[in-house]
């Protein structure tokens, strides 16, 4: 024992007096000890640490969590480092991040019982080159959200694929300064959803085979509401044709199957340069919040919206959901852009400024429902666009963690 202690002391001295380069911790390898090793490393991390995972399949039964600022969790790449939660027993998500400045990159996460990756009150977070999927396809028993940043500032989601979420694949809620780009959402109920958030740029993504492609919502009864200033541009929003499989009661259960972009309530939303096709209900749908409202601080109207310069292919040919009964009244088809025509709530009427600045042959319909909660039997459809208006577009979102390389 004395010899060992002497050896240890010598080693410790050597370590203390040697070159100052810190020893790089080895990557976590798959195996029976991997979960305990990884969770211990996440808990004991120091700001600036990079925690690496080897390629291989990691079968975890417990959720992971990270609560240390400025830590990077890096796998060997999508499809190479695979974290499977097929046998998950505990926790509401696969990975929960509650610290700032975190980067998650280079792994696939599969089959969490609840949400995939949640980050809460986690500012300056980067989700980069990740895949979150439910391998059984679109099922109501899948978890709700794939990636789920909430109550955060400066959120970057880049190169992320989510498949099979029973609510939204890529969901950002109650946050500000958000970029979702170069990502792919497929076979989810909602592909990408920005909810109760401010200043979001959603661009150069592919949303396909969801029930609804891209959603921008503002909902009542939440700590953060009054969502505004979102730009949805240069996305491919095509063939959103998966039957809505959300559990009843969730707001997304009301998304009609085959909706390209669905905008609910909110202010100052700009949709431009996108390519739409194969969305059988409608390509762009703009609606008010249609349930009863007990929240005096909430405005259910979409207002100051600009829809311009998009490319529209075939669609609107088989409207689903709540709009299905209306379709026969207008020839069985919906035009590419549909607005519910609600301009008043709680006795107040607003100049909502829904601007459609598209080529003349791009069809538009207002259902003329007037007030919310709406009464579908009182629809007064009109194909006339509202007058054009100058609505200043929000500036491009710039994130501190997204500075271009010098």
């Amino acid at each position, binding site marked *: 024992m004395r010899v060992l202690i002497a050896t240890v002391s010598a080693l410790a001295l050597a370590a203390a007096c040697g070159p100052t380069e810190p020893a790089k911790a080895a990557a976590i390898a798959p195996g029976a000890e991997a979960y305990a090793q990884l969770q*211990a490393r996440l*808990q004991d991390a120091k700001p600036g640490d990079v925690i690496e995972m080897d390629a291989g399949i990691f079968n975890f039964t417990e959720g992971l969590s990270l609560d240390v600022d400025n830590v990077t969790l890096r796998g060997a790449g999508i499809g190479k480092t695979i974290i499977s939660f097929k046998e998950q027993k505990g926790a509401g998500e696969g990975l929960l991040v509650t610290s700032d400045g975190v980067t998650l990159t280079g792994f696939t996460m599969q089959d969490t019982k*609840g949400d995939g990756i949640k980050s809460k009150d986690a500012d300056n977070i980067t989700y980069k080159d990740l895949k979150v999927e439910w391998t059984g396809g679109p099922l*109501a028993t899948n978890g*709700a*959200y794939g990636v789920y940043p909430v109550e955060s500032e400066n959120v970057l989601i880049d190169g992320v694929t989510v498949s099979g979420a029973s609510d939204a694949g890529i969901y950002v809620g109650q946050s500000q300064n958000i970029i979702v780009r170069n990502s792919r959402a497929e076979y989810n109920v909602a592909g990408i959803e920005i909810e109760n958030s401010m200043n979001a740029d959603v661009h150069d993504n592919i949303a396909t085979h969801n029930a609804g492609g891209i959603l921008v919502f503002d909902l009542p009864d939440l700590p953060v509401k009054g969502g505004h200033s979102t730009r949805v541009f240069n996305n491919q929003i095509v063939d959103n044709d998966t039957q809505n499989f959300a559990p009843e009661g969730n707001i997304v259960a009301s998304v009609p199957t085959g909706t390209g972009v669905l905008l609910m309530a909110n202010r100052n939303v700009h949709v431009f340069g996108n390519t739409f096709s194969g969305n059988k209900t409608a390509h762009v749908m703009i609606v008010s919040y249609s349930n009863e409202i007990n929240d005096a601080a909430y405005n259910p109207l979409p207002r100051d919206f600009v829809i311009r310069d998009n490319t529209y292919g075939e669609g609107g040919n088989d409207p689903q959901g709540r709009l299905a009964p209306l379709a026969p009244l207008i020839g069985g088809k919906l035009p590419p852009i549909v607005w519910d025509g609600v301009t008043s709530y709680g006795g107040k009427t607003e100049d909502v400024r829904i601007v459609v600045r598209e080529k003349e042959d791009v069809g538009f319909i207002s259902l003329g429902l007037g007030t919310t909660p709406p009464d579908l039997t009182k629809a007064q459809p009109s194909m006339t666009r509202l007058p054009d208006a100058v609505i200043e577009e929000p500036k491009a979102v710039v994130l501190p963690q997204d500075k271009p390389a010098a």
Partner: protein
Amino acid sequence: MIKTVSPHGKSGSRIQRRLAFLRVTLAGGLAAIAAACSAPPGVKDGVILAADPAPRLSDYGFFKDAAAREAEAGVVAYDLVNPLFSDHAAKHRLVYVPKGKAAAYNADSVFDFPVGSVLIKTFAFAPDMRKPAEGERYIETRLLIHKEEGWAAYPYVWNAEQTEAIYAPVGKRETIKTIAPDGEALSIDYAVPNRNQCKLCHSKGGELIPIGPSARSLNHAGPTGANQLADWTERGILTGAPQDAPAAPAAYGDAAIELRARAWLDINCAHCHRAGGGASNSGLFLAWNESNPTGWGVHKRPTAAGRGSGDNLFVIEPGKPDESILVHRLQAVEPSVLMPELGRTTVDHQGLELIRQWIAGMPASAP
């Protein structure tokens, strides 16, 4: 500093593990020696305030015996009027406040404990929880320590011999067979939480905080038979407690059902479901003093519940417990549906029945 995590089975790792072992052993030993020299025997304030958690529960000196049944002087047993349900585990709570210091009374929140204070909670099971004192075994002991820089949470897991509890920062699962107080035979997949999970419940605005020891939860006769606020004041570990301090109604006492149900939700849910808590983004706030009915669930639509909604529209549908998401999630045992997310794998039938009765009795026209 020597990194203690290393790939298993590779050359060099054994030495690293030994290094790590020696480091903690030496550190713990030295701290214990230092503390023992200044304050024999008894609680070791130096170990409590050390930068790192002690490797063993016994290093802190809270107990006279290895089985931790007999507390040292200054370590005071207490209980809460309404405990959080944790799969029927028995809980033994102790508080330690450094000599010469006292916690400051608050009417509405947990007392302000001075630096160096420790809340000690041991989770235990007997083979038959109808006779919880017979053959009781300790599973884990959790420490909440008020360090100079704030509170820290350290889980310790008991060994099979019941002679020591070892620091277990990443938690553990353990199968426990027992008979519940209502006679139901249970095989519980009991989860000892990891350090981050401790913080999920014990968190407000990103800071780790205690939950239990507030006036409302302590203002009754405790394990010693005396009113706990009076007893703590008498012992000098609490100052400022008035004669008319508030008390929460016992969930299974004789107060009005609304008060009892809200008190139950406060203890079992509000640590996350409140502003600044882990579930703040849901907008569902279940603290006893939440005044907005939508806030505490009446006709409130789910936010991020996923299949936790159970195809129901509202958290509480007055008069209809079976159409209320709250009931659905309390009677579920499936991960991602059940609530609370942590600390429960079985159904709290008594609590569930309380909530069912409360909702059933609400007028259907409730706001």
